[in-house]
């Protein structure tokens, strides 16, 4: 039973990353109509940011949690202003191709300087150790990742669904021209939205640095799984992406326990099943 609970926890952690990443993808897709293929690369940049902050500047994990998303977010906003905004009005597929190119560049540069092996990043002192719950041993850092991601996800949901800013955002998703006529600076909002989505990816990167090590290709395979998560959940609903992300993480964790051979394919198999039964995805509208 110990092993089962441990795998469930690993599943929840992977689920947090899926949720944070697919949430960012959904927010970006809503505003920019672009599937951000560079999301995995930016997640990796978040982790590397934390690594640099610790080893070059001497700022610890808690600072990294704050600064890395801001830095990567700014990098994302520069990308949006210099490249992505020129794609408005073109076929969606060009956005996919452009961001795929950006991902190749970013990953290639990091691979050149850091190879393919992982760099260690220590768990912060305050989160070391674990609690014995009786039925299992709970490492504090892992519990922290799950709870913190959940809080961030719910906060993002609240920001978009319940605040005035979120209302503007949703309105601009529906009809940008009309919202612009009301005096809202839509292009700036688009840039900030991309920054927000990218910042969420970077945050996931910082959270994963102590667990998964810091590697140039850490986001490359992850983003494909997240795409499958997005296909399953659909990008129409923020809460939908969060729940699908966590649920699929848990299912993957369970698979690791009951049938480990299928653990890295289970999300794709589920995607196939969902497509066969309900082609529009679980929460999605027709694309």
């Amino acid at each position, binding site marked *: 039973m110990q092993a089962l609970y441990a795998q469930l926890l690993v599943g929840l952690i992977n689920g947090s990353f899926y949720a944070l990443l697919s949430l960012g993808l959904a927010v970006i897709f809503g505003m920019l109509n672009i599937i951000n293929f560079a999301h995995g690369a930016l997640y990796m940049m978040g982790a590397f940011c934390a690594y640099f902050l610790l080893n070059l500047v001497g700022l610890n994990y808690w600072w990294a949690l704050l600064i890395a998303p801001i830095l990567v977010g700014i990098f994302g906003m520069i990308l949006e202003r210099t490249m992505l905004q020129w794609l408005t009005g073109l076929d969606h597929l060009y956005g996919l191709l452009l961001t795929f190119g950006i991902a190749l560049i970013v*990953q290639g540069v990091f691979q050149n300087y850091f190879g393919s092996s992982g760099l260690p990043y220590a768990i912060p002192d305050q989160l070391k150790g674990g609690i014995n719950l009786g039925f299992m041993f709970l490492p504090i850092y892992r519990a922290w990742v799950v709870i913190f991601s959940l809080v961030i996800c719910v906060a993002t949901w609240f920001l978009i669904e319940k605040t005035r800013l979120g209302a503007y955002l949703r309105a601009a998703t529906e009809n940008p021209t009309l919202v612009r006529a009301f005096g809202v600076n839509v292009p700036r909002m688009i840039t900030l939205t991309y920054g927000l989505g990218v910042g969420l990816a970077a945050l996931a990167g910082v959270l994963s640095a102590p667990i998964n090590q810091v590697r140039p290709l850490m986001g490359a395979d992850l983003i494909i799984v997240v795409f499958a998560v997005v*296909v399953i959940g659909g990008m129409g609903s923020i809460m939908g992406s969060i729940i699908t992300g966590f649920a699929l993480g848990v299912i993957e964790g369970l698979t690791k326990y009951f049938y480990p051979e299928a653990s890295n394919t289970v999300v794709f198999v589920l995607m196939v099943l969902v497509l066969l039964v309900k082609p529009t995805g679980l929460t999605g509208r027709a*694309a």
Partner: protein
Amino acid sequence: MTALTDDTLPVTPRAMRDEMIVFVVMALLLASVPFSGIYPFFVMQALCFALLACAFNLLIGYGGLLSFGHAMFLGTAGYCSAHALKVWALPPELGILVGVAGAFVLSIVTGYISIRRQGIYFSMITLALSQLLYFLYLQTPFTHGEDGIQGIPQGHLFGVFDLSKPTVLYYVVLVGFLAGFLLIYRIINSPFGEVLKAIRENEPRAISLGYRTDQYKFLAFVLSGTLAGLAGSLKVFVAQNASLTDVHWSMSGEVVLMTLVGGLGTIFGPVVGAFAIIAMQQYLAGFGQWVTVIQGSIFVICVLTFRRGVVGEIAHYFRRSL
């Protein structure tokens, strides 16, 4: 709806004549390669990728469907052919047939699944399916995991042509490529191809005219996947191995890049793009990961400034269809 290929000229007798002239010139140039002193292995490799890119282009350029998993057909056909040649010891012609059949079956299955969603979702689904296959091939014993299937015998095609001789192999690959190319050209200019273009331009209107667009897209997917499989089978004879790199997502990305550089929706673009990218990889092989960076930069530059691709720009300049 903004189509990927913005200026499609009507098919006129003049356009057909232009295309046939370019085709004959291309065929003659390629046929003269063994006499020119160019390393034939490089050209053979480029021909396989050119066929793959042409098959991919059939789907994106004429059906408007961006598949981000076309490497799965290349790799699957490669594994099937390699297994047939090495383990079953079949002659080359049957080995190719087994590979193409493998890709055909795979394209039916994956097409049935992925055709259910359009646009961006279609790309994500094909990518996820190819990743699923990658993990399957990593684990199943017949692919030999990380090692791949190596030392594949080349044998005698129809019992006559000795494929271990580079020149003979070159012409066999060339014939395979030209046959595939002509088949794609025929498909594009058939009534089926015209309906496909109509669906790309405006699917709701095509539906309102009574076309079952899903069936057309499915058939285009199967044709594209099967022809990509032919490229994979031919590549087995050239490389004499079948490995996981052929199924990896980065390979799918390269195919997209080749077609984008040459020109989406142009007839000769994928061939030009494939030769350009393979040549670039050859010359920059010593630069390690910078090749990835350069490929990424080409993607960015193409999308931002050069969306018609090399052949597309030339055709646009001369107002011809190429």
